[in-house]
């Protein structure tokens, strides 16, 4: 889920946007604020709350839009100037890192470092878990996770369609490859990149809100802790491949789940070892096609 937004920017601009993790966090906080919950005990805004009380789902959508807007601002302030100055493409990695640092610390400055969580039962009266196991072997899955999974799949399908089938999607891929040539074809590169950032910010913000409903919002570094895993997931799925990002997420989850209990200490190592092997054996990702290169 998180990975989808990441992938979107990556597939289009071939840059890794560290600020994405921060936008994810923002999405969660915006949603929190929009549900009318009060901020905690630290920071400038302590004990204050918005006068509106949106239901969780609506708040999540509006929060995601706001996150998208923030992404737009970030693009204008931190990415476009770099592009216009013909900077080393890697440099955008640094400037996105800078943005992430700013956002995280501004959040802390405003609302402190404590964790928050949404008002009880954001999804109404659904049971908290559903059992998929048979007999004594229980395989319960939390409802929230099912919701998140469902939403990711839907978003994934929409984005895939958009990127691969529509004119705008094709134009975006053209920009990714060669922005100069794209502009020679009449493609407004700045505008489309902005759109991409907005969408990616929205997806990121929405995932922040949803994941925040699954686990509490663990302070300003909430998103950052997902960042690395998100990266791993998109590699598994094939960089820049949106369905791949979802499949990658599932595979990584399964690989971790099958680590025997005795070795659970090595769970993360296993995940990354899978990632490492994957890179060596199928660098194009699980679903990806090998890229041909012509001399």
């Amino acid at each position, binding site marked *: 889920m998180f990975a989808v937004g990441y992938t979107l920017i*990556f597939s289009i601009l*071939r840059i*890794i946007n*560290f600020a994405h993790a921060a936008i994810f966090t923002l999405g969660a906080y915006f949603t929190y604020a929009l549900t009318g919950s009060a901020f905690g005990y630290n920071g400038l805004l302590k004990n204050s709350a918005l006068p509106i009380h949106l239901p969780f789902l609506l708040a999540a959508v509006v929060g995601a839009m706001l996150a998208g807007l923030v992404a737009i601002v970030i693009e204008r*302030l*931190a990415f476009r*100037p*770099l592009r216009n*100055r*013909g*900077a*080393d493409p*890697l*440099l*955008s*990695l*640094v*400037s996105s*890192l*800078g*943005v*992430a*640092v*700013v*956002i*995280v*610390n*501004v959040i802390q*400055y405003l609302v402190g470092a404590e964790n928050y969580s949404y008002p009880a039962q954001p999804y109404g009266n659904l049971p908290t878990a559903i059992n998929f196991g048979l007999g004594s072997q229980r395989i319960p899955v939390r409802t929230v996770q099912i919701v998140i999974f469902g939403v990711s799949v839907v978003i994934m399908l929409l984005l895939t369609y958009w990127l691969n089938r529509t004119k705008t999607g094709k134009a975006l891929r053209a920009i990714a490859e060669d922005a100069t040539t794209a502009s020679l074809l009449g493609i407004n590169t700045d505008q489309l990149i902005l759109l991409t950032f907005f969408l990616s910010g929205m997806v990121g913000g929405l995932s922040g809100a949803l994941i925040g409903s699954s686990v509490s919002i663990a302070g300003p570094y909430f998103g950052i802790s997902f960042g*690395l895993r998100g*990266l*791993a997931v998109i*590699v598994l799925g094939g*960089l820049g491949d949106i369905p791949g990002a979802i499949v990658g997420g599932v595979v990584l989850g399964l690989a971790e789940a099958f680590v025997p209990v005795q070795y659970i*200490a*090595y*769970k*993360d*190592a296993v995940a*990354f*070892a899978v*990632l*490492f092997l994957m*890179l*060596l054996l199928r*660098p194009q990702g699980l679903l990806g096609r090998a890229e041909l*290169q012509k*001399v």
Partner: protein
Amino acid sequence: MAVFFATYGSLIVAMLLAAMLALSLYLPLLAGQLSLASPGFYALGGYVAAIISTRVVPFDSGAQAYIWRMGTHEVARFSGPLYPVSLLIVEMLVAGVLSAVLAIVLGLPALRLRGIYLLLATIAFVQILQVVTQVLDLTGGAIGIFNIPQPFASQLGYAWVVVPLLLLSAGFVYRLERIRIGRAFTAIREDELAAAAMGINLAYHKVLAFTMGAVLAGIVGVISAHSINTWNSRQGTFDAGITYLAFVLIGGSRTFLGPIIGGIVLYALPEVLRGLAAIPGLPLALAQLLKDGRLIMYGLLLVLGTIFFPQGLIRPNLFRHRTVEATPRKIEQQ
């Protein structure tokens, strides 16, 4: 002056170490290899130092007192005997060799990957190493290893090792950039395929660059472990790697001076901001902002830095090779 060195002694040492870490990331980058493996080797080096000095070598810290003076100013005191510098050097050698071996084993398969894929593979390596050191008893688990003996009476004493090492490695890279091997690296960075067609052995040069970076990072880890007195699995993580990368890119990734300057400047920046907040006479609000918003400013400066120095602080044509410069003129005159 004394106060300055006492306050900033460890910062200065850490800054120089940061410069070297940036160099260790820069070396593979020189050959176009975007690798974040440096923190892993750094962590490895630290553990080598920690394990050797606390578990292998029986070293007993008794209760003698050492006083280190600068003129009449007492700069620092240290109780307990000093750890022999010769052993420190042995540790550095061991760490260097271990890093080199690991780098070759890891590099041979991994360096077939390019760009972002290599980046992720190296991150995976760092993460695996982190989990393993977190779990193993040998590395002290989550707490890590502490009470690492001190080879110097004060933090600034580390300068005796760090400064020569930095000069050495800077000199090394400076020369490297100007010889055949360095040109081969550059060619690979620019266009692997064309480089191969020009007779450059890709695998050999990539692994070479990667290994040199690894060795440097491993050695820095040794010094770092002693200098911060403790070592644990939170040292040399993925985030640290990103920070080193920022050092390189902000400093300038086209000449060895870039990472060095970048490492020094960026590492010092948060501390400079801390220091600024302490300047007397600042309006309260500003001082407060500098203090509480230190990292906000840091982030902003990172962004502004990239915008205003899109090629990094140091650009190579500032320092062109003189003999090369003179040659065409010479031929033209003939």
